[in-house]
C-alpha cells in the first residue's frame, strides 16, 4: 500500500517522511525520524509523556496521526534548548531536582512551556491543573511545580 508523503516543519526545520495511515505522530517521531525524546507511556492520551505542540497547540502525539502533520509546525523536546542554551524550564528542572527517573520530563517540559506562553504568572493551582495530563509517578509533583513557578518568575524577570 502506498504510504503518505508528509512535509512538515519540525523544531523549525523542514522534514519529509513517509507513513502509513495508522501510524501516529509519536510513531513517526520515534521510529521514522529517530527523535526518541517523546515517550510512549500509554498510547491513549492519559499520561502526557508524548506531549508535543502542533502549530503552538499542546497535544499528545500518540493521539495524532502522522499524516495529519502535513503542513504543520511541530515542536518536540529536542527543539526546546536553543543551541547550547537550555530553556529556563530545563535549567530550573535540573536545579530543583524536578525529575527522578526522567521519563515524564520531556512531556512535562513541553506542557509547562505551553502554559507559560499563555500565562506567564500562573498560580500553583493553575500549574497543577495545566499539568494534570502529565503523569509523574516518582516525584509527587512537588519539585515539578516548584521548578515551573521558579522558571516563570525568572522568565518574567522578577
Amino acid at each position, binding site marked *: 500500500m502506498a504510504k503518505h508523503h508528509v512535509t512538515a516543519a519540525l523544531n523549525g526545520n523542514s522534514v519529509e517522511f513517509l507513513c*502509513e495511515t*495508522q501510524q501516529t505522530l509519536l*510513531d513517526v517521531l*520515534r*521510529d521514522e525520524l*529517530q*527523535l*526518541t*525524546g*517523546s*515517550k*510512549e*507511556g*500509554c*498510547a*491513549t492520551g*492519559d*499520561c502526557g*509523556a508524548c506531549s508535543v505542540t502542533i502549530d503552538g497547540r499542546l497535544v499528545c502525539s500518540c493521539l495524532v496521526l502522522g499524516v495529519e502533520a502535513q503542513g504543520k509546525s511541530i515542536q*518536540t*523536546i*529536542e527543539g*526546546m*534548548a536553543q543551541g547550547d542554551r*537550555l530553556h529556563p524550564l*530545563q535549567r530550573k*528542572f*535540573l*536545579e*530543583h*531536582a524536578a*525529575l*527522578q*527517573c*526522567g*521519563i*515524564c*520530563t*520531556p512531556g512535562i*517540559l513541553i506542557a509547562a512551556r505551553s502554559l507559560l506562553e499563555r500565562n506567564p504568572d500562573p498560580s*500553583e*493551582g493553575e*500549574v*497543577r*491543573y495545566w*499539568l*494534570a*495530563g*502529565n*503523569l*509523574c*509517578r*516518582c*516525584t*509527587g*509533583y*512537588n*519539585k*515539578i*511545580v516548584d521548578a515551573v513557578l521558579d522558571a516563570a518568575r525568572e522568565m518574567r524577570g522578577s
Partner: protein
Amino acid sequence: MDMKTTKPEEKAFKVVGTRPVRPDGVPKVTGQARYGADFALPGMLWGSILRSPHAHARIRAIDTSKAAALPGVKAVITSADFPEQEYEFIGPERVAVNFWHMTRNVMAREKVLYEGHAVAAVAATTRAIADAALELIEVDYAPLPHVIDVDAAMRPDAPLLFEDMITRGIEPPPAKPSNISKRIEFGIGDLAAGFAAADAIVEMDFTTAPVHQGYIEPHACLARFDNKGQGELWSASQGHFVVRAFTAKLLNMNIGDVLVHPAEIGGGFGGKTVIYVEPLAAALSRRSGHPVKIMMSREDVFKSTGPTSGASMTVKIGARKDGSIVAAEGLFKFQAGAFPGSPVMNATMCGFAPYNIPNVRSVGYDVVCNRPKSAAYRAPGSPISAFAVESVMDAVAAKIDMDPLKFRLLNACKTGTPTVWGPKHAHDGYAETLQALLAHPAYKAPLGKNQGRGVASGFWFNNGGESSATVHVNEDGTVVVATGSMDIGGSRASMAIMAAETLGIEYEAVRAIVADTASIGFTHVTGGSRVTFATGIAVVEACNKVIAELRARAAMIWKIEAADVAWESGCAKPAGAAAGKFEPMPLKAIAAKRALTGGPIGAEASVNAGGAAPGFASELCDVEVDPETGAVKILRFVVAQDVGRAIHPSYVEGQLHGGVVQGIGWALNEEYIYDDAGHLTNAGFLDYRIPVASDLPMIEAVLVEVPNPNHPYGVKGAGEVNIVPAMAAVANAINSAVGRRLTDLPMSPPKVLAAIDAGC
C-alpha cells in the same frame, strides 16, 4: 515546606548534604537520554506477544504455522522454545526463585493462569506485521474455573492453579493440595497472658486491593543474540545483573555469554527487579538472526506485570490504660498472583516492628490466584500490614483516650527492643520521627468542618548486599566513578558526592556512570533502598584505595614512606613534622605525574554490605470529606522520615514526596477491578487512577537524620518506608473527619459515602 532535623554534634561536610545538578541531568531535560524503548539497531525486527484472553485455561495446542507464513514474519516462538527448568526454590526465603515458575510466567506452558499471560511471540519487519501475525496464531484453550480473591482462593473447594501444590511451612505437611503456597509464623512471648493484662483490646478485619507500581515507562528491551550462544541486551531494569542471570538461565546460556547494557530506566518501584520481555526478545533474536525490540503496551503492563498483592487481614492489639501495649496479633493473607511469592513474609515482620510489644504473633499465608504474579513494590508487604496495624493503633489510642502520636511514642522501639522475628533492634530513629511530627506546626493547626487529621508510622528494613564500584583518576585530575547500580532517581549524583567528599575534591571534578555487566563486578538490584548505602560503601572503599595509592605516589615523589603521607582536603600532606617539610600536593598534581610514578591510578571495590539500618517514617495527613459525595481531598501531608544522612537532600526529599503520593493513590483510588470472567477491566491510566498533580497539595518532607554508624556518611536508605504509613494516615484522617473507619482499600468515594450513609 521541607525541613531537616540533624543532631547538632555532627561534623560538617563539604559536599555531602549539598544539592548539585545530577550528572545525567542535561540529557534527561533535552530528550537525549536513552531509555529501554529508545534503542535501535540496523536490521532490527519488532517483537510482539500473544496473550491469553482467559483467566485460567489449559492449552491443548498452539498452531503458529499461519503466522510464520505471513510475509515479513521472521520468527515465532512458544514455550517449546525454552528449556524446561527444575522445580526447586533457590535462594533466600522471600526472594526464593523457582525457575520452573519463572519460565512459565514469561511464557505459559501447560496452562494460562491469568488474563494477559504470554503464550507466543512473533518477530517481524514492522510492528504492524508483528501484530497482524499474532491474529493468525491459533491457540486451542480449554477454559477452567478461575479464582481472583485471596479468601476465595483459600477455600477448600476453590479451583486449583497447581493440582499438586502442598502448603510449605506446615508440619506435618497437609495431605491435600491447595492454593496456599506457604504459611509463615513469627512470635515472641505469651499472647494469652498479654491480652489478659490489657485494659483495652481492639480487633478489626481489613482488605486491600492489588495496586500496580505504575511506572510511566512500559517494559522494553532490545536484544541481539546469535546462534553461537552469545548475546547483548539493552534493557530498562532495576538490575542489569539480575536481568543477565535470569535471561541466561531461561535460555540455558552461560552468564558470561550475555552482556546487558543499562538503559535509562523510566521508573520501577520494585516492578523492574524481574524479567518479562527480555528472554522473549532474546529467543526471537536468536531464532531470526536479527536484533529484536519488544515494547509492552500499557495494557500489557497492567495485565501481565507485577502489581503488589491484595490482602485480607485481621489485627488485634491490647494495651493498658497507661498506654503500654501488652499484646498484638496479626493474620495476613496475601495474593501471590499466578505463582508463589507474595511479600507476605515482610508484612508479618514489619507490621508490629515499630513497637515494643512483649507478646506478639504474626501469621502469614502466601496464596496463588488467577492474577499476574505479584512483584516487589516499594517496601514490599510493609505498607499492607501497616494499613491494618496503624489503623488499629489509632483505634486503641482513641479507646484509652490518648493522643495517637504520644501513644506511639510511648511504645516506640529503640536499640535493644525485641522484634517479632527474634533479634533486638540495633538502631534508633523511630522516636525521632514521632518527635519531629509532635514539634511540627501542622500538628496543632486548626481544622474546619468535615476535616480530619490522621497520623501513622511505618518500618522498613532497608537492604545491603553486593555492590561494585570503580574509581579512576583521569590525567587532568578529574575522577570517574562507575558502579553496577542502575540509576533510577539520581544515584549517580549521590555516588559522585560521596566520592568527592571522600577524595576531598569538588563535585564537578567527579563524574559518575552506570557500567554494563561486562565492565564492573556483580551488583544487586536498585531496590530495597540499598544503593546509596551498599553501592555507596563500595564507592567510598574504592576512593579509599585510590587515596592509599595517591599517598604512595606522593611518597615516591617526596622520597618518604607512604605511611608518612596523610590525605586531607584533596591533597597529600606530610603526616606530622617528622615526615619532612613539603607543600601539600593536590590530587591534580599527583595525577599529572602518574606515568612517572607507576601508571594510571584507579581502584575497584566490591562489597557485601551488612549493617543496613532500618527506615522509620511517621506521617500526618489532613483531609476534607464531602459528606454528600464521599470525595476525600488531601489538604495537607507531612512526612518525617529517618534517612540516616541525606547525601543529596533534594533527591531524598523527592523520595519522600513520591512515596507519600503513591501511598495516597493506594489509599484513595488505585485498584485492580475484575469482571466475572476474571478479566481486568481497568487496564489503563484512565481507569487505574494514579494521582495527578491537581489532586495534591505540596507534600511536606522532614528529613530526620540519625546517622547509621555502619556507613561512612551515615546513610540508612530513603526510598521506601515513606509509602508505608500513608494509607493508614489517610484512613485515620477520614475517621477523624467523619467518624467512620474505612477498612477496605481503596477508600474510593462510593465506599466512603456508603460508610457515611450507613451511620446516618
